[in-house]
């Protein structure tokens, strides 16, 4: 995608996912992204493969006077600068004060926001998940709460940073004015949970789900998800499978009661489901417009024919190792992502990008 080919982005990195994923989205859209790291910064090659392909890599010590000058030199021609709470020794308030009213869009992404009583509280993805209500909602009654796997509050925050940055850019095209964008992962996750927030105001709750597996049903070779919420889907299944439903059974009488009595539904479905594979059920039910999904392991996903045809995974080479990682989360219709990408070696672009930014000799390594 070359949608953002005229946009230049600087990432001031401390190895955090939030800033890196935000600028990964820019990079996937064709923006020029320069990732700046302090000398001797820790790095993880697998995470770099996931987050940093297509980005220029610069080693720069912004703690030093010359380093700060170089960073500001780079930023002079940039549209967006992004950092997160793991970016060390970076005084964003000085940038805000010095930049107003420049054209630069300054995006800070943190767990809990740049101000407020908890802004400096030690935090993690798990803590954000807990504070946002997500872990509570994910847990089943009688079981421990659960966060979404991995660092998904960080990715949600990164997406919010991308949305905020592009919104600020759209505003800049109208006014010429840049601004700062403050993203809190906590606020972004609560925004994601808007339906649950309103549910609470309307009805109380939401309560934790009654069982861990929800709409997942056992079948011949694993599990499938079958959404039986709508009356239309239910009637389709009853006819398709010739199910004998006792009309006087209150557990199966309505959409709401079936949702609350999934064990009774499981018993009814069992005879059919144990004879069919996930793939058979997926194809059979989707063909009659009943939403159904196969439970797939990550390894199975890599070999899924649909994802292969769409080239949903890309090979990324970093430090001599090639790994298959998910491709862009959106695309221009009809455009296939590149088959192979690579990660620049750490500091690969330091001299080419910093040359000439200081009147005297040298970078600031």
């Amino acid at each position, binding site marked *: *995608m070359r949608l953002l080919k005229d946009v230049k982005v600087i990432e001031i990195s401390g190895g955090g996912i939030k800033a890196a994923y935000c600028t990964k989205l820019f990079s996937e859209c064709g923006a020029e992204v320069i990732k700046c790291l302090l000398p001797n910064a820790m790095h993880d090659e697998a995470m770099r493969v*996931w987050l940093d392909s297509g980005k220029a890599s610069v080693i720069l010590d912004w703690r030093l006077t010359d380093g700060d000058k170089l960073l500001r030199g780079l930023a002079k021609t940039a549209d967006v600068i992004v950092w997160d709470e793991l970016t060390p020794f970076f005084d964003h308030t000085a940038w805000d004060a010095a930049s107003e009213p420049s054209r630069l869009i300054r995006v800070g992404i943190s767990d809990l*926001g740049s101000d*407020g009583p*908890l*802004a400096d509280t030690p935090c*993690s993805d*798990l*803590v954000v998940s*807990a*504070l946002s*209500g*997500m*872990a*509570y*909602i994910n847990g089943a009654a009688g079981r421990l*709460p*659960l966060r*979404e796997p*991995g660092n998904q509050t960080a990715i*949600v925050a990164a*997406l919010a*940073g991308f*949305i905020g940055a*592009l*919104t600020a850019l*759209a505003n800049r095209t*109208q006014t010429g004015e840049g*601004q*700062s964008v*403050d993203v809190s992962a906590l606020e972004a996750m609560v925004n*994601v*949970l*808007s*339906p*649950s*927030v309103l549910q*609470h*105001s309307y*009805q109380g709750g939401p309560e934790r789900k009654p069982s*861990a*597996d929800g709409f997942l049903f056992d079948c011949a070779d694993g*599990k499938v*998800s*079958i*959404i039986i919420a709508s009356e239309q889907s239910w009637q389709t299944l009853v006819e398709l499978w010739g199910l004998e439903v006792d009309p006087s059974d209150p557990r199966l009488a309505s*959409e709401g009661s079936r949702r609350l009595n999934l064990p009774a539904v499981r018993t009814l479905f069992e005879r059919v489901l144990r004879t069919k594979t996930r793939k058979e059920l997926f194809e059979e039910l*989707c063909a009659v417009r009943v*939403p159904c*999904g196969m*439970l*797939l*392991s*990550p390894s199975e996903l890599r070999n899924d024919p649909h994802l292969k045809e769409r080239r*949903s*995974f890309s090979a*990324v080479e970093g430090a001599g190792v090639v790994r298959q*990682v998910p491709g862009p989360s*959106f695309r221009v*219709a009809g455009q296939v992502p590149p088959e192979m990408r690579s990660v620049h070696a750490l500091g690969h672009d330091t001299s080419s990008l910093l040359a000439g930014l200081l009147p005297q000799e040298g970078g600031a390594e």
Partner: protein
Amino acid sequence: MKRYPLEHVRIVDLTQAWAGSYALQLLGDFGADIVKIESRSRPDPWRGGFEAGRGLAAYPTSGPGDRPYNRAYLANSVNRNKRAITLDLSSSDGVEIFLELVREADVVTENFTPRVMNNLGIGFEVLRSVRPSIILLSMPAFGLSGPYSDFPGIGGTIEPMSGNSWLLGESPGQPQVSGVMYPDAVAGLNGAAAVLAALQHREATGEGVHMEVSQHESMIAMLGEFFAQDAAVESFAYRNSDLAYPLNAIFAALGQEDWITVTARNNEELCVLAEIVGVTPIEDDAIRANEIEAATALWVQSRTADEAERCLASTGLAVGRVRSMSEVLACPQLNARAYWQLVEQPEGIGAVPMPGPIAQLSVTPGGVRLPPARHGEHSREVLVDRLGISPDKFAELASKGITGEGPPP
């Protein structure tokens, strides 16, 4: 008068339910002018149908009222800052009016299966013929191409197909699904991002573009860190663990349904925790982490959540209280940052807090300009006042059920 950063952007929205409606709400919060189109015969499924008790019972405790479809929290949670109209797109009059709206629009959005837009005669080429610079966002469950592309999908089926349910489980072979149809929201975030990227492209080139968000792929992208590892993906991620931290877990405190999370982000923090919970240091880190986690579980279990949180947080560990939604609404951090927006709900439900915009912009912050729209509430305003259709013609169209408000006549 307050100025919004996207107030120059006009969007004609055909999306329904969560994913698409949420994408548009994110843009509406920053001022985009959105006309949401529903049908009089089939309202957005998140409205729960015209009769109370059909679909999800999503009404306030005061009941469904005379117009339950305007009182569903699901629909009202993702449809603020929009004008809602109805159009019958299976009629030539409906398509004609739709294309009139497109003529003045920047963006059209839809989340049907891929063949629907062409079947309705409003595919991308038709849209471009009336508005050459138009941006179309399509959000089908499985994308616009590939063997599954015509299959229906919603969050609850996308999640197991993306690997998320597999990894969310408490242990191998015990998969779980999220408490909400979470992949819808993820697709919504990506939908908003895709529209904004396309708008930036159009600003630079004058070209419209057809954007595609596969809800399936957008969910898989959330799991990239697992796919990037050298070891088999299946060996990671159970029970809240983290690839980067030696300890990341949730513990039950004294009492019912009260938990705290504890993250030891490095070995030093793990040592601090070990000392508090009474574990003697030994050499093997992996064994120690498991042993410390077990000891922490016992330690937390014998204290109230408040007590445990206070003690652990005072040492600099990352600790959090698992909050229910009522506790989230009382969060001092969210309140201090003026996060909540008090928004009047339709049909006399009253004003309730809703989440603020997804990011805080310093010069042009977003906000709530319009409350959640009632079904067809703005049909007359948009068709008569904006498009110039005569009141008589509007009345005729409404009498045929092509536009108007509420169930079919």
